[in-house]
Protein backbone atom coordinates (compact mmCIF):
# COMPACT_ATOMS: atom_id res chain seq x y z
CA UNK A 1 0.00 0.00 0.00
CA UNK A 2 1.12 3.54 -0.72
CA UNK A 3 2.93 5.18 2.20
CA UNK A 4 1.43 8.65 1.64
CA UNK A 5 -2.19 7.61 2.08
CA UNK A 6 -4.32 6.38 4.95
CA UNK A 7 -6.35 4.35 2.46
CA UNK A 8 -6.37 0.73 3.53
CA UNK A 9 -5.83 1.49 7.20
CA UNK A 10 -8.70 1.57 9.68
CA UNK A 11 -10.17 5.06 9.51
CA UNK A 12 -12.20 6.15 12.55
CA UNK A 13 -14.16 8.85 10.71
CA UNK A 14 -15.00 6.48 7.87
CA UNK A 15 -16.14 3.85 10.38
CA UNK A 16 -18.36 6.36 12.19
CA UNK A 17 -19.99 7.61 8.95
CA UNK A 18 -20.29 4.03 7.71
CA UNK A 19 -22.25 3.01 10.84
CA UNK A 20 -24.32 6.22 10.82
CA UNK A 21 -25.35 5.52 7.21
CA UNK A 22 -26.20 1.89 8.00
CA UNK A 23 -28.18 2.99 11.09
CA UNK A 24 -30.13 5.71 9.24
CA UNK A 25 -30.99 3.48 6.28
CA UNK A 26 -32.04 0.59 8.52
CA UNK A 27 -34.16 3.04 10.53
CA UNK A 28 -35.82 4.13 7.28
CA UNK A 29 -36.36 0.46 6.42
CA UNK A 30 -38.02 -0.19 9.80
CA UNK A 31 -40.32 2.80 9.24
CA UNK A 32 -41.08 1.72 5.66
CA UNK A 33 -41.65 -1.93 6.58
CA UNK A 34 -44.67 -0.95 8.69
CA UNK A 35 -46.16 0.77 5.66
CA UNK A 36 -45.39 -1.98 3.14
CA UNK A 37 -48.34 -4.38 3.16
CA UNK A 38 -49.49 -4.67 -0.47
CA UNK A 39 -47.80 -5.18 -3.82
CA UNK A 40 -48.55 -1.54 -4.66
CA UNK A 41 -46.49 -0.53 -1.62
CA UNK A 42 -43.74 -3.04 -2.31
CA UNK A 43 -43.21 -2.19 -6.01
CA UNK A 44 -44.41 1.43 -6.17
CA UNK A 45 -44.30 2.94 -2.63
CA UNK A 46 -48.11 3.29 -2.74
CA UNK A 47 -47.69 5.85 -5.60
CA UNK A 48 -47.30 8.60 -2.99
CA UNK A 49 -43.77 9.84 -3.79
CA UNK A 50 -43.71 13.56 -4.69
CA UNK A 51 -42.05 14.81 -7.90
CA UNK A 52 -39.24 16.47 -5.94
CA UNK A 53 -38.60 13.32 -3.91
CA UNK A 54 -38.66 11.21 -7.06
CA UNK A 55 -36.26 13.60 -8.77
CA UNK A 56 -33.73 13.02 -6.00
CA UNK A 57 -34.50 9.29 -5.93
CA UNK A 58 -33.98 9.00 -9.72
CA UNK A 59 -30.67 10.80 -9.35
CA UNK A 60 -29.80 8.50 -6.46
CA UNK A 61 -30.68 5.39 -8.44
CA UNK A 62 -28.68 6.60 -11.43
CA UNK A 63 -25.48 8.10 -10.00
CA UNK A 64 -23.65 4.86 -9.40
CA UNK A 65 -20.18 4.04 -8.19
CA UNK A 66 -19.21 4.12 -11.86
CA UNK A 67 -20.33 7.75 -12.07
CA UNK A 68 -18.53 8.90 -8.99
CA UNK A 69 -15.46 6.70 -8.63
CA UNK A 70 -15.18 5.49 -12.23
CA UNK A 71 -15.43 8.85 -14.02
CA UNK A 72 -13.24 10.66 -11.49
CA UNK A 73 -10.70 7.87 -11.98
CA UNK A 74 -10.90 7.94 -15.78
CA UNK A 75 -10.56 11.73 -15.97
CA UNK A 76 -7.70 11.74 -13.48
CA UNK A 77 -5.70 9.25 -15.55
CA UNK A 78 -6.80 9.97 -19.16
CA UNK A 79 -8.03 13.59 -18.94
CA UNK A 80 -10.67 14.55 -21.49
CA UNK A 81 -11.57 10.97 -22.46
CA UNK A 82 -13.39 10.36 -19.18
CA UNK A 83 -15.76 13.23 -20.00
CA UNK A 84 -17.29 11.13 -22.82
CA UNK A 85 -18.99 9.24 -20.00
CA UNK A 86 -19.98 12.41 -18.08
CA UNK A 87 -21.90 13.81 -21.04
CA UNK A 88 -23.19 10.48 -22.36
CA UNK A 89 -24.74 9.52 -19.07
CA UNK A 90 -26.75 12.75 -18.91
CA UNK A 91 -28.11 12.99 -22.46
CA UNK A 92 -30.25 9.88 -21.96
CA UNK A 93 -32.46 11.82 -19.54
CA UNK A 94 -34.12 14.17 -22.04
CA UNK A 95 -34.90 11.04 -24.11
CA UNK A 96 -36.54 9.47 -21.05
CA UNK A 97 -38.61 12.62 -20.58
CA UNK A 98 -39.69 13.12 -24.21
CA UNK A 99 -40.47 9.51 -25.13
CA UNK A 100 -40.93 7.33 -22.06
CA UNK A 101 -41.79 8.79 -18.63
CA UNK A 102 -45.41 9.94 -19.04
CA UNK A 103 -46.68 7.15 -21.35
CA UNK A 104 -45.01 4.60 -19.08
CA UNK A 105 -46.76 6.00 -15.98
CA UNK A 106 -50.15 5.96 -17.68
CA UNK A 107 -49.87 2.59 -19.42
CA UNK A 108 -48.17 0.41 -16.80
CA UNK A 109 -48.46 -0.73 -13.23
CA UNK A 110 -45.12 -1.92 -11.81
CA UNK A 111 -42.63 -2.88 -14.57
CA UNK A 112 -41.79 -1.69 -18.08
CA UNK A 113 -43.01 -5.08 -19.34
CA UNK A 114 -46.54 -3.96 -18.30
CA UNK A 115 -46.33 -1.37 -21.08
CA UNK A 116 -44.80 -3.62 -23.74
CA UNK A 117 -47.33 -6.37 -23.00
CA UNK A 118 -50.36 -4.06 -22.66
CA UNK A 119 -51.77 -4.57 -26.19
CA UNK A 120 -50.08 -7.93 -26.79
CA UNK A 121 -50.11 -11.53 -25.56
CA UNK A 122 -48.84 -11.59 -22.01
CA UNK A 123 -46.71 -14.72 -21.62
CA UNK A 124 -44.24 -14.45 -24.54
CA UNK A 125 -43.74 -10.69 -24.11
CA UNK A 126 -43.26 -10.97 -20.33
CA UNK A 127 -40.69 -13.75 -20.72
CA UNK A 128 -38.69 -11.76 -23.31
CA UNK A 129 -38.88 -8.58 -21.19
CA UNK A 130 -37.79 -10.45 -18.07
CA UNK A 131 -34.74 -11.78 -19.94
CA UNK A 132 -33.80 -8.21 -20.95
CA UNK A 133 -34.42 -6.92 -17.41
CA UNK A 134 -32.44 -9.66 -15.70
CA UNK A 135 -29.53 -9.36 -18.16
CA UNK A 136 -29.35 -5.58 -17.59
CA UNK A 137 -29.71 -5.88 -13.81
CA UNK A 138 -27.12 -8.65 -13.59
CA UNK A 139 -24.38 -6.76 -15.47
CA UNK A 140 -25.13 -3.59 -13.51
CA UNK A 141 -25.13 -5.49 -10.20
CA UNK A 142 -21.80 -7.15 -10.97
CA UNK A 143 -20.26 -3.73 -11.62
CA UNK A 144 -21.69 -2.30 -8.38
CA UNK A 145 -20.69 -5.28 -6.25
CA UNK A 146 -17.14 -5.30 -7.63
CA UNK A 147 -16.89 -1.56 -6.91
CA UNK A 148 -18.26 -2.05 -3.41
CA UNK A 149 -15.90 -4.89 -2.57
CA UNK A 150 -12.85 -3.00 -3.79
CA UNK A 151 -13.86 0.23 -2.09
CA UNK A 152 -14.62 -1.22 1.33
CA UNK A 153 -11.50 -3.35 1.20
CA UNK A 154 -9.38 -0.26 0.49
CA UNK A 155 -11.20 1.92 3.02
CA UNK A 156 -11.54 -0.35 6.00
CA UNK A 157 -9.01 -3.10 5.38
CA UNK A 158 -11.80 -5.68 5.40
CA UNK A 159 -11.46 -8.60 3.01
CA UNK A 160 -13.11 -8.17 -0.39
CA UNK A 161 -15.46 -11.08 0.29
CA UNK A 162 -16.58 -9.70 3.69
CA UNK A 163 -17.32 -6.35 2.06
CA UNK A 164 -19.46 -7.99 -0.63
CA UNK A 165 -21.42 -9.93 1.98
CA UNK A 166 -22.08 -6.73 4.01
CA UNK A 167 -23.40 -4.92 0.92
CA UNK A 168 -25.51 -7.92 -0.09
CA UNK A 169 -27.02 -8.21 3.40
CA UNK A 170 -27.88 -4.49 3.60
CA UNK A 171 -29.42 -4.57 0.12
CA UNK A 172 -31.59 -7.58 0.98
CA UNK A 173 -32.72 -5.94 4.25
CA UNK A 174 -33.82 -2.68 2.56
CA UNK A 175 -35.78 -4.34 -0.23
CA UNK A 176 -37.12 -7.39 1.60
CA UNK A 177 -38.65 -5.42 4.49
CA UNK A 178 -39.04 -1.89 3.18
CA UNK A 179 -39.79 -2.46 -0.51
CA UNK A 180 -39.92 0.57 -2.79
CA UNK A 181 -40.63 3.02 0.04
CA UNK A 182 -37.39 2.16 1.87
CA UNK A 183 -35.49 1.99 -1.44
CA UNK A 184 -36.79 5.44 -2.43
CA UNK A 185 -35.66 7.07 0.82
CA UNK A 186 -32.31 5.29 0.73
CA UNK A 187 -31.90 6.82 -2.76
CA UNK A 188 -32.84 10.28 -1.50
CA UNK A 189 -30.41 10.14 1.44
CA UNK A 190 -27.68 8.89 -0.89
CA UNK A 191 -28.37 11.56 -3.54
CA UNK A 192 -28.15 14.35 -0.96
CA UNK A 193 -24.92 12.92 0.51
CA UNK A 194 -23.32 12.35 -2.90
CA UNK A 195 -24.27 15.73 -4.38
CA UNK A 196 -23.28 17.50 -1.15
CA UNK A 197 -20.00 15.61 -0.82
CA UNK A 198 -19.03 16.08 -4.48
CA UNK A 199 -19.98 19.77 -4.33
CA UNK A 200 -17.89 20.46 -1.20
CA UNK A 201 -14.94 18.53 -2.64
CA UNK A 202 -15.17 20.37 -5.98
CA UNK A 203 -15.38 23.77 -4.25
CA UNK A 204 -12.33 22.97 -2.09
CA UNK A 205 -10.42 21.98 -5.24
CA UNK A 206 -11.48 25.14 -7.09
CA UNK A 207 -10.49 27.26 -4.07
CA UNK A 208 -6.88 26.23 -4.78
CA UNK A 209 -7.26 27.62 -8.33
CA UNK A 210 -8.95 30.93 -7.51
CA UNK A 211 -12.39 29.43 -8.28
CA UNK A 212 -11.44 29.43 -11.94
CA UNK A 213 -11.88 26.03 -13.66
CA UNK A 214 -9.67 27.23 -16.56
CA UNK A 215 -6.72 27.57 -14.19
CA UNK A 216 -7.31 23.99 -13.00
CA UNK A 217 -7.38 22.66 -16.58
CA UNK A 218 -4.34 24.79 -17.44
CA UNK A 219 -2.45 23.32 -14.46
CA UNK A 220 -3.30 19.81 -15.68
CA UNK A 221 -1.98 20.64 -19.16
CA UNK A 222 1.16 22.25 -17.74
CA UNK A 223 1.93 19.15 -15.67
CA UNK A 224 0.89 16.31 -17.98
CA UNK A 225 0.87 17.85 -21.45
CA UNK A 226 -1.75 19.47 -23.67
CA UNK A 227 -3.03 16.03 -24.69
CA UNK A 228 -5.01 15.65 -21.44
CA UNK A 229 -7.41 18.38 -22.62
CA UNK A 230 -8.11 16.67 -25.96
CA UNK A 231 -9.59 13.31 -27.01
CA UNK A 232 -6.94 10.65 -26.67
CA UNK A 233 -6.22 6.97 -26.58
CA UNK A 234 -9.41 5.72 -24.92
CA UNK A 235 -11.18 6.20 -28.24
CA UNK A 236 -8.71 4.97 -30.84
CA UNK A 237 -11.42 3.78 -33.23
CA UNK A 238 -13.87 6.64 -34.07
CA UNK A 239 -16.81 4.25 -34.39
CA UNK A 240 -16.12 3.07 -30.85
CA UNK A 241 -16.93 6.54 -29.54
CA UNK A 242 -20.19 6.69 -31.45
CA UNK A 243 -21.21 3.18 -30.44
CA UNK A 244 -20.47 3.86 -26.77
CA UNK A 245 -22.39 7.14 -27.02
CA UNK A 246 -25.44 5.35 -28.41
CA UNK A 247 -25.37 2.81 -25.57
CA UNK A 248 -25.15 5.57 -22.94
CA UNK A 249 -27.83 7.77 -24.53
CA UNK A 250 -30.51 5.15 -25.22
CA UNK A 251 -29.59 2.77 -22.43
CA UNK A 252 -30.90 5.14 -19.76
CA UNK A 253 -34.39 4.86 -21.25
CA UNK A 254 -34.19 1.06 -21.01
CA UNK A 255 -32.92 0.65 -17.44
CA UNK A 256 -35.56 -1.33 -15.51
CA UNK A 257 -34.71 0.15 -12.09
CA UNK A 258 -35.04 3.70 -13.46
CA UNK A 259 -38.26 3.01 -15.40
CA UNK A 260 -39.82 1.45 -12.31
CA UNK A 261 -39.47 4.71 -10.39
CA UNK A 262 -42.11 6.40 -12.58
CA UNK A 263 -44.78 4.21 -10.97
CA UNK A 264 -44.01 5.65 -7.53
CA UNK A 265 -45.49 9.08 -8.30
CA UNK A 266 -49.25 9.85 -8.32
CA UNK A 267 -49.66 10.69 -12.03
CA UNK A 268 -48.01 11.38 -15.40
CA UNK A 269 -47.56 15.07 -14.66
CA UNK A 270 -45.59 14.19 -11.51
CA UNK A 271 -43.51 11.74 -13.58
CA UNK A 272 -42.70 14.57 -16.02
CA UNK A 273 -41.70 17.00 -13.26
CA UNK A 274 -39.56 14.38 -11.53
CA UNK A 275 -37.45 13.81 -14.68
CA UNK A 276 -36.93 17.57 -14.95
CA UNK A 277 -35.53 17.67 -11.39
CA UNK A 278 -33.47 14.53 -11.96
CA UNK A 279 -31.89 15.96 -15.14
CA UNK A 280 -30.92 19.11 -13.28
CA UNK A 281 -29.36 17.23 -10.36
CA UNK A 282 -27.54 14.65 -12.49
CA UNK A 283 -26.20 17.27 -14.93
CA UNK A 284 -24.92 19.32 -12.00
CA UNK A 285 -23.19 16.22 -10.64
CA UNK A 286 -21.50 15.43 -13.97
CA UNK A 287 -20.23 19.01 -14.25
CA UNK A 288 -18.66 18.47 -10.82
CA UNK A 289 -16.93 15.32 -12.12
CA UNK A 290 -14.98 17.54 -14.57
CA UNK A 291 -13.49 19.35 -11.57
CA UNK A 292 -13.01 16.25 -9.40
CA UNK A 293 -11.24 14.33 -12.19
CA UNK A 294 -8.84 17.10 -13.20
CA UNK A 295 -8.41 18.05 -9.53
CA UNK A 296 -7.25 14.51 -8.72
CA UNK A 297 -4.94 14.57 -11.77
CA UNK A 298 -3.21 17.81 -10.71
CA UNK A 299 -3.22 17.48 -6.92
CA UNK A 300 -2.79 13.72 -6.45
CA UNK A 301 -1.29 12.60 -9.78
CA UNK A 302 -2.12 9.64 -12.06
CA UNK A 303 0.82 7.54 -10.83
CA UNK A 304 -0.21 7.73 -7.18
CA UNK A 305 -3.84 6.99 -8.13
CA UNK A 306 -2.90 3.92 -10.16
CA UNK A 307 -0.46 2.90 -7.42
CA UNK A 308 -3.30 2.57 -4.92
CA UNK A 309 -5.71 0.86 -7.33
CA UNK A 310 -4.93 -0.20 -10.90
CA UNK A 311 -8.51 0.56 -11.98
CA UNK A 312 -8.00 4.19 -10.75
CA UNK A 313 -11.25 3.98 -8.77
CA UNK A 314 -9.71 5.63 -5.71
CA UNK A 315 -9.10 9.01 -7.41
CA UNK A 316 -11.95 10.83 -5.63
CA UNK A 317 -11.19 9.41 -2.15
CA UNK A 318 -7.47 10.21 -2.64
CA UNK A 319 -8.37 13.75 -3.69
CA UNK A 320 -10.50 14.11 -0.56
CA UNK A 321 -7.57 12.94 1.56
CA UNK A 322 -5.21 15.42 -0.09
CA UNK A 323 -7.64 18.28 0.50
CA UNK A 324 -9.10 17.52 3.91
CA UNK A 325 -6.93 14.80 5.42
CA UNK A 326 -8.11 11.53 6.89
CA UNK A 327 -11.47 12.83 8.22
CA UNK A 328 -12.58 14.06 4.77
CA UNK A 329 -11.32 10.84 3.21
CA UNK A 330 -13.55 8.99 5.67
CA UNK A 331 -16.55 11.11 4.77
CA UNK A 332 -16.12 10.68 1.00
CA UNK A 333 -15.52 6.95 1.39
CA UNK A 334 -18.73 6.63 3.38
CA UNK A 335 -20.58 8.62 0.69
CA UNK A 336 -19.26 6.27 -1.99
CA UNK A 337 -20.39 3.34 0.14
CA UNK A 338 -23.91 4.83 0.48
CA UNK A 339 -23.92 5.33 -3.29
CA UNK A 340 -23.31 1.66 -3.93
CA UNK A 341 -25.84 0.51 -1.31
CA UNK A 342 -28.60 2.62 -2.82
CA UNK A 343 -27.97 1.57 -6.42
CA UNK A 344 -27.84 -2.15 -5.61
CA UNK A 345 -31.10 -1.83 -3.66
CA UNK A 346 -32.82 -0.27 -6.70
CA UNK A 347 -31.41 -2.97 -8.97
CA UNK A 348 -32.47 -5.78 -6.65
CA UNK A 349 -36.00 -4.40 -6.52
CA UNK A 350 -36.19 -4.17 -10.33
CA UNK A 351 -34.87 -7.71 -10.75
CA UNK A 352 -37.25 -9.06 -8.09
CA UNK A 353 -40.18 -7.37 -9.87
CA UNK A 354 -39.28 -9.05 -13.16
CA UNK A 355 -39.12 -12.44 -11.43
CA UNK A 356 -42.32 -12.04 -9.39
CA UNK A 357 -44.62 -9.66 -11.31
CA UNK A 358 -43.62 -10.57 -14.88
CA UNK A 359 -42.56 -14.21 -14.70
CA UNK A 360 -44.40 -15.71 -11.71
CA UNK A 361 -47.69 -13.83 -11.69
CA UNK A 362 -48.21 -13.13 -15.38
CA UNK A 363 -46.58 -16.19 -16.94
CA UNK A 364 -46.63 -19.06 -14.44
CA UNK A 365 -49.97 -18.12 -12.82
CA UNK A 366 -51.52 -16.59 -15.95
CA UNK A 367 -52.22 -13.28 -14.13
CA UNK A 368 -54.42 -14.96 -11.50
CA UNK A 369 -52.23 -14.80 -8.38
CA UNK A 370 -53.46 -13.00 -5.26
CA UNK A 371 -51.71 -9.89 -3.98
CA UNK A 372 -50.44 -11.77 -0.93
CA UNK A 373 -48.95 -14.49 -3.08
CA UNK A 374 -47.27 -11.94 -5.38
CA UNK A 375 -45.79 -10.10 -2.39
CA UNK A 376 -44.43 -13.35 -0.97
CA UNK A 377 -42.87 -14.34 -4.31
CA UNK A 378 -41.36 -10.86 -4.70
CA UNK A 379 -39.69 -11.22 -1.30
CA UNK A 380 -38.34 -14.68 -2.11
CA UNK A 381 -37.02 -13.29 -5.43
CA UNK A 382 -35.29 -10.46 -3.52
CA UNK A 383 -33.37 -12.94 -1.38
CA UNK A 384 -32.44 -15.06 -4.43
CA UNK A 385 -31.15 -11.98 -6.25
CA UNK A 386 -29.25 -10.75 -3.21
CA UNK A 387 -27.46 -14.08 -2.81
CA UNK A 388 -26.77 -14.23 -6.56
CA UNK A 389 -25.32 -10.69 -6.44
CA UNK A 390 -22.92 -11.70 -3.65
CA UNK A 391 -21.78 -14.79 -5.56
CA UNK A 392 -21.32 -12.80 -8.81
CA UNK A 393 -19.52 -10.01 -6.96
CA UNK A 394 -16.97 -12.49 -5.64
CA UNK A 395 -16.67 -14.26 -9.03
CA UNK A 396 -15.98 -11.06 -10.99
CA UNK A 397 -13.37 -9.58 -8.64
CA UNK A 398 -11.01 -7.08 -10.31
CA UNK A 399 -12.96 -5.70 -13.31
CA UNK A 400 -13.13 -2.00 -14.26
CA UNK A 401 -16.38 -0.56 -12.87
CA UNK A 402 -17.31 2.05 -15.52
CA UNK A 403 -16.75 -0.40 -18.36
CA UNK A 404 -18.99 -3.10 -16.86
CA UNK A 405 -21.81 -0.60 -16.48
CA UNK A 406 -21.52 0.41 -20.15
CA UNK A 407 -22.24 -3.22 -21.06
CA UNK A 408 -25.44 -3.10 -18.99
CA UNK A 409 -26.38 0.09 -20.85
CA UNK A 410 -25.83 -1.62 -24.21
CA UNK A 411 -28.26 -4.40 -23.28
CA UNK A 412 -30.83 -1.90 -21.95
CA UNK A 413 -30.50 0.20 -25.12
CA UNK A 414 -30.78 -2.75 -27.53
CA UNK A 415 -33.04 -5.24 -25.73
CA UNK A 416 -35.46 -3.04 -23.77
CA UNK A 417 -35.56 0.44 -25.35
CA UNK A 418 -36.64 -0.38 -28.96
CA UNK A 419 -39.54 -2.62 -27.85
CA UNK A 420 -40.68 -0.05 -25.29
CA UNK A 421 -40.72 2.80 -27.83
CA UNK A 422 -42.51 0.68 -30.44
CA UNK A 423 -45.06 -0.55 -27.88
CA UNK A 424 -45.87 3.02 -26.82
CA UNK A 425 -46.02 4.72 -30.21
CA UNK A 426 -46.47 2.21 -33.02
CA UNK A 427 -49.97 1.02 -33.98
CA UNK A 428 -48.82 -2.06 -35.92
CA UNK A 429 -46.58 -3.54 -33.21
CA UNK A 430 -47.33 -7.24 -32.60
CA UNK A 431 -46.46 -9.91 -30.04
CA UNK A 432 -44.06 -11.60 -32.46
CA UNK A 433 -42.41 -8.24 -33.21
CA UNK A 434 -41.97 -7.44 -29.51
CA UNK A 435 -40.47 -10.82 -28.68
CA UNK A 436 -38.16 -10.72 -31.73
CA UNK A 437 -36.99 -7.19 -30.87
CA UNK A 438 -36.24 -7.89 -27.19
CA UNK A 439 -34.61 -11.29 -27.67
CA UNK A 440 -32.54 -10.25 -30.70
CA UNK A 441 -31.44 -7.00 -29.03
CA UNK A 442 -30.38 -8.73 -25.82
CA UNK A 443 -28.79 -11.82 -27.37
CA UNK A 444 -27.00 -9.91 -30.16
CA UNK A 445 -25.52 -7.58 -27.53
CA UNK A 446 -24.27 -10.50 -25.44
CA UNK A 447 -22.84 -12.34 -28.45
CA UNK A 448 -21.12 -9.24 -29.91
CA UNK A 449 -19.70 -8.29 -26.50
CA UNK A 450 -18.25 -11.77 -26.29
CA UNK A 451 -16.71 -11.41 -29.76
CA UNK A 452 -15.50 -7.84 -29.14
CA UNK A 453 -12.01 -6.68 -28.13
CA UNK A 454 -13.48 -6.01 -24.67
CA UNK A 455 -13.62 -9.74 -23.94
CA UNK A 456 -11.32 -11.27 -26.58
CA UNK A 457 -8.36 -8.90 -26.18
CA UNK A 458 -8.75 -7.33 -22.71
CA UNK A 459 -10.01 -10.39 -20.81
CA UNK A 460 -8.88 -13.41 -22.83
CA UNK A 461 -5.66 -11.74 -24.09
CA UNK A 462 -6.08 -12.84 -27.70
CA UNK A 463 -4.34 -10.81 -30.39
CA UNK A 464 -7.50 -9.85 -32.31
CA UNK A 465 -11.25 -9.92 -31.96
CA UNK A 466 -13.79 -11.01 -34.54
CA UNK A 467 -16.03 -7.97 -33.92
CA UNK A 468 -14.23 -4.60 -34.13
CA UNK A 469 -16.25 -2.42 -31.71
CA UNK A 470 -15.74 -2.43 -27.95
CA UNK A 471 -19.42 -1.63 -27.43
CA UNK A 472 -21.93 -3.16 -29.88
CA UNK A 473 -24.78 -0.60 -29.51
CA UNK A 474 -24.13 0.91 -32.97
CA UNK A 475 -25.20 -2.42 -34.46
CA UNK A 476 -27.58 -3.81 -31.84
CA UNK A 477 -29.90 -0.79 -31.30
CA UNK A 478 -30.83 -0.56 -35.03
CA UNK A 479 -31.09 -4.36 -35.03
CA UNK A 480 -33.58 -4.26 -32.12
CA UNK A 481 -35.74 -1.71 -33.96
CA UNK A 482 -35.45 -3.52 -37.31
CA UNK A 483 -36.48 -6.88 -35.85
CA UNK A 484 -39.44 -5.30 -34.05
CA UNK A 485 -40.65 -3.58 -37.21
CA UNK A 486 -40.00 -6.31 -39.79
CA UNK A 487 -41.44 -9.16 -37.71
CA UNK A 488 -44.50 -7.06 -36.80
CA UNK A 489 -45.17 -6.27 -40.46
CA UNK A 490 -44.93 -9.96 -41.31
CA UNK A 491 -47.38 -11.03 -38.58
CA UNK A 492 -51.15 -10.52 -38.35
CA UNK A 493 -52.54 -6.97 -37.99
CA UNK A 494 -53.72 -5.75 -34.61
CA UNK A 495 -57.22 -4.21 -34.48
CA UNK A 496 -57.22 -0.43 -34.82
CA UNK A 497 -59.69 0.24 -32.01
CA UNK A 498 -57.26 -1.40 -29.58
CA UNK A 499 -54.78 1.31 -30.46
CA UNK A 500 -57.35 4.06 -30.00
CA UNK A 501 -58.00 2.75 -26.50
CA UNK A 502 -54.23 2.51 -25.90
CA UNK A 503 -53.74 6.09 -27.08
CA UNK A 504 -56.49 7.35 -24.78
CA UNK A 505 -54.89 5.61 -21.81
CA UNK A 506 -51.42 6.84 -22.76
CA UNK A 507 -52.55 10.46 -22.47
CA UNK A 508 -55.47 10.40 -20.05
CA UNK A 509 -54.28 7.68 -17.69
CA UNK A 510 -56.42 4.96 -16.15
CA UNK A 511 -58.78 7.38 -14.40
CA UNK A 512 -60.69 8.11 -17.61
CA UNK A 513 -60.46 4.67 -19.13
Amino acid at each position, binding site marked *: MNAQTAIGQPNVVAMVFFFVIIAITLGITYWAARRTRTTEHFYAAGRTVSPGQNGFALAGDYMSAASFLGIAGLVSTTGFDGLIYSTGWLVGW*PVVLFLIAEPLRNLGKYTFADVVAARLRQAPVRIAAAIGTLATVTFYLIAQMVGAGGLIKLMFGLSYETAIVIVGAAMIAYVLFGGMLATTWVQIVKAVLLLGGAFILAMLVLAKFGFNPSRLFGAAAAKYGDAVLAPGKLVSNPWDAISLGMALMFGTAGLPHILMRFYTVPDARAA*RTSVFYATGLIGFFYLLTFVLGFGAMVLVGPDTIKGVDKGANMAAPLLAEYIGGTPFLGFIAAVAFATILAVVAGLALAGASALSHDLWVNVVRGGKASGDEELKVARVATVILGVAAVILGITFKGQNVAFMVSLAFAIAASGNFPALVLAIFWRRFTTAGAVASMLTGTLATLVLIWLSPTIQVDVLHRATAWFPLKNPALVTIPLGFAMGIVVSLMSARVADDAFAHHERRMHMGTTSA
Partner: protein
Amino acid sequence: MTTPTTDGSAAIRALAQRRWRIAITLTVVMVIIYFGFISLVAFDKALLGRRLGSGLSVGILLGALVIVSAWLLTWFYVRWANTHYDAALSAIERGGGDTR
Protein backbone atom coordinates in the same frame (compact mmCIF):
# COMPACT_ATOMS: atom_id res chain seq x y z
CA MET B 1 -60.18 7.77 -40.94
CA THR B 2 -61.37 8.81 -37.51
CA THR B 3 -64.44 10.99 -37.39
CA PRO B 4 -65.20 13.46 -34.59
CA THR B 5 -67.20 11.73 -31.86
CA THR B 6 -68.59 12.78 -28.51
CA ASP B 7 -65.98 10.85 -26.54
CA GLY B 8 -63.22 13.14 -27.72
CA SER B 9 -61.29 10.41 -29.55
CA ALA B 10 -60.52 12.72 -32.50
CA ALA B 11 -59.23 15.34 -30.07
CA ILE B 12 -57.06 12.73 -28.33
CA ARG B 13 -55.73 11.57 -31.71
CA ALA B 14 -54.81 15.15 -32.62
CA LEU B 15 -53.20 15.78 -29.25
CA ALA B 16 -51.31 12.48 -29.45
CA GLN B 17 -49.89 13.48 -32.83
CA ARG B 18 -48.93 16.91 -31.56
CA ARG B 19 -47.14 15.50 -28.54
CA TRP B 20 -45.39 12.91 -30.72
CA ARG B 21 -44.13 15.62 -33.10
CA ILE B 22 -42.75 17.69 -30.21
CA ALA B 23 -41.23 14.63 -28.49
CA ILE B 24 -39.54 13.32 -31.63
CA THR B 25 -38.28 16.78 -32.64
CA LEU B 26 -36.71 17.40 -29.23
CA THR B 27 -35.23 13.89 -29.21
CA VAL B 28 -33.68 14.48 -32.64
CA VAL B 29 -32.23 17.81 -31.46
CA MET B 30 -30.63 16.08 -28.46
CA VAL B 31 -29.31 13.30 -30.71
CA ILE B 32 -27.79 15.84 -33.12
CA ILE B 33 -26.16 17.82 -30.31
CA TYR B 34 -24.70 14.79 -28.58
CA PHE B 35 -23.58 12.87 -31.66
CA GLY B 36 -22.23 16.10 -33.12
CA PHE B 37 -20.06 16.29 -30.02
CA ILE B 38 -19.13 12.59 -30.18
CA SER B 39 -18.32 12.86 -33.90
CA LEU B 40 -15.90 15.66 -33.12
CA VAL B 41 -14.36 13.47 -30.41
CA ALA B 42 -14.02 10.70 -32.97
CA PHE B 43 -13.04 12.58 -36.13
CA ASP B 44 -11.57 15.98 -35.17
CA LYS B 45 -9.41 15.58 -32.11
CA ALA B 46 -7.25 18.57 -33.09
CA LEU B 47 -10.18 20.99 -32.97
CA LEU B 48 -11.28 19.78 -29.54
CA GLY B 49 -7.73 20.09 -28.25
CA ARG B 50 -7.50 23.76 -29.29
CA ARG B 51 -7.17 26.06 -26.30
CA LEU B 52 -9.37 29.00 -25.40
CA GLY B 53 -7.25 31.17 -23.15
CA SER B 54 -5.14 29.64 -20.40
CA GLY B 55 -6.67 26.23 -19.69
CA LEU B 56 -10.07 25.73 -21.22
CA SER B 57 -10.04 23.58 -24.37
CA VAL B 58 -12.79 23.56 -27.01
CA GLY B 59 -13.55 19.95 -26.07
CA ILE B 60 -14.16 20.66 -22.39
CA LEU B 61 -16.28 23.72 -23.19
CA LEU B 62 -18.42 21.75 -25.68
CA GLY B 63 -18.79 18.90 -23.18
CA ALA B 64 -20.16 21.33 -20.60
CA LEU B 65 -22.45 22.86 -23.23
CA VAL B 66 -23.87 19.42 -24.06
CA ILE B 67 -24.97 19.17 -20.42
CA VAL B 68 -26.42 22.69 -20.48
CA SER B 69 -28.30 21.89 -23.72
CA ALA B 70 -29.87 18.83 -22.08
CA TRP B 71 -31.10 21.10 -19.29
CA LEU B 72 -32.55 23.62 -21.75
CA LEU B 73 -34.36 20.96 -23.81
CA THR B 74 -35.99 19.37 -20.74
CA TRP B 75 -36.96 22.82 -19.47
CA PHE B 76 -38.51 23.66 -22.84
CA TYR B 77 -40.50 20.42 -22.98
CA VAL B 78 -41.79 20.73 -19.39
CA ARG B 79 -42.87 24.32 -20.05
CA TRP B 80 -44.74 23.26 -23.21
CA ALA B 81 -46.37 20.27 -21.49
CA ASN B 82 -47.37 22.22 -18.37
CA THR B 83 -49.09 24.92 -20.38
CA HIS B 84 -50.30 23.56 -23.74
CA TYR B 85 -50.48 19.79 -23.32
CA ASP B 86 -52.12 19.80 -19.86
CA ALA B 87 -54.62 22.45 -20.95
CA ALA B 88 -55.61 20.39 -23.99
CA LEU B 89 -55.97 17.28 -21.84
CA SER B 90 -58.25 18.96 -19.33
CA ALA B 91 -60.33 20.42 -22.18
CA ILE B 92 -60.83 16.89 -23.51
CA GLU B 93 -61.69 15.65 -20.01
CA ARG B 94 -64.31 18.40 -19.56
CA GLY B 95 -65.85 18.17 -23.01
CA GLY B 96 -65.49 14.45 -23.62
CA GLY B 97 -68.03 13.13 -21.13
CA ASP B 98 -66.57 9.72 -21.81
CA THR B 99 -67.59 6.81 -19.60
CA ARG B 100 -65.88 4.06 -21.53
